């Protein structure tokens, strides 16, 4: 009985050992080529390219100059020059910074009374800046003959400062314009803008409306 149990046990041990040995030899065999050669069996002839993706040129900024006429209440209609910088936030909305200047002429009162001067030469300079928000109301195409060009009609509103008659005046501005794009990066602009501020230059405090009509040229970058 005892010897029978022993023989079963021994046989089981034998099978186990043989099994382990064959497994061990298999794994050793499988590892061999890698461990001896230490390099890839098949070397691909293609070299992987490192791709550098070029940056996309964005043209959301617009810079331009303009010229036109500014009617300063009581002080005549005068030529005005200015510059503007705009940032197009979305296809609909843009913000812009505008700076313009004009030299105002004499009031009717001064013209009729030749010797009287209300303002000094320096005080006649009318300089404004404003920060505005624009909305493209009608985006579409304008047709010239058979050719179609992109164009926008936009509305503008802003706040800023006007320096006139030696004083600063807090100024509201509202306006509208037409932007015509001969190509992607160039724009021709026509706009009408009202600069509204309260002034006491002529003795009484009153709200003045100073309407400006200008044409400009700008580029996108």
């Amino acid at each position, binding site marked *: 009985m005892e010897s029978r149990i022993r023989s079963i046990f021994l046989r089981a041990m034998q099978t186990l050992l043989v099994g382990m040995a064959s497994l061990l030899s298999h794994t050793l065999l499988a590892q061999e080529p890698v461990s001896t050669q230490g390099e890839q069996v098949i070397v691909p002839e293609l070299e992987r390219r490192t791709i550098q993706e070029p940056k996309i040129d964005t043209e959301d900024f617009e810079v331009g100059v303009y010229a036109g006429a500014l009617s300063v209440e009581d002080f005549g209609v005068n030529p005005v020059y200015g510059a503007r910088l705009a*940032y197009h936030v979305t296809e609909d909305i843009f913000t812009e910074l505008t700076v313009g200047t004009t030299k105002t002429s004499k009031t009717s009162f001064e013209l009729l009374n030749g010797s009287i001067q209300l303002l000094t030469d320096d005080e006649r300079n009318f300089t404004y800046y404003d920060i505005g928000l624009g909305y493209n109301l009608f985006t579409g195409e304008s047709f010239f003959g058979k050719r179609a060009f992109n164009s926008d009609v936009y509305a503008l509103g802003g706040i800023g400062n006007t320096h006139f008659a030696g004083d600063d005046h807090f100024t509201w501005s509202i306006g509208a314009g037409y932007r015509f794009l001969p190509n*992607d990066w160039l724009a021709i602009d026509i706009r009408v803008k009202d600069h509204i501020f309260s002034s006491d230059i002529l003795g009484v405090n009153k709200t003045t409306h100073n309407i400006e009509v200008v044409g400009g040229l700008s580029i996108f970058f």
Partner: protein
Amino acid sequence: MRTIIFFLLVAQFLLAGSALAKEDFLEVTIADPYTELHTGPGRAYPIFHVIDRGEKIKILKRKTDWFKVRSAKGVEGWVHRNQMEQTLTASGQKLDFNEATLEHFTKRRWEMGLLGGDFDGAASLSLYGSYYFVPQLSVELLGTQAIGNFSSNLILSTRLVAHPFPEWRISPYFALGTGIIDTTPKATLVSTTDRQDNIGHVGVGADVYLTKRFVLRLEYTNYVVFTSRDENEEINEWKAGFAVFF
């Protein structure tokens, strides 16, 4: 003569720049069933061409959310970002435009903004620029023009701003600064002279992340003007405005 040479050099540089840019456009493959080409960068411009799946397009430039592309056949038109996001790059991955998110807002380095408000009864306009050393601390340059009934002020100041919770969408901040204030009385008043004083301020406010690169800023500031008179002057200012960050 010198200016002419300068302009020629600038022109040459610009032309060289554009020529260089021309050779090097990003090329992507359409993965959607088709992509629509508009005549201009806006949804109101008509669709005039369609490019099928599998075709390659070159991206020439971008205006707001619109991309100017050129097809293999040489047709040029504008495609919206939503459709461009469905194209594949040369490495077979979807095109990612890295649009700014709340995370970018938290880790912003530069910020520029415009504020409007009330400066002790006078209308005020401010322009500021900030640099963030770490998300919790920034330094700011601030220029304010206040236009009142009796005088106008120009204030230039630098300040340190602490942002204790930069990862919040509504991120509060505290500011401490110093600068100069230039006061010009109204020309129509009985002549008083211009004066310049030192000014210090404390401010408390919040930056609210809106969308893309835009931030709404609200602030209350308390100024102390160190006048040459016996008493210092205190001014309260409330303001709000918008900023962009990079």
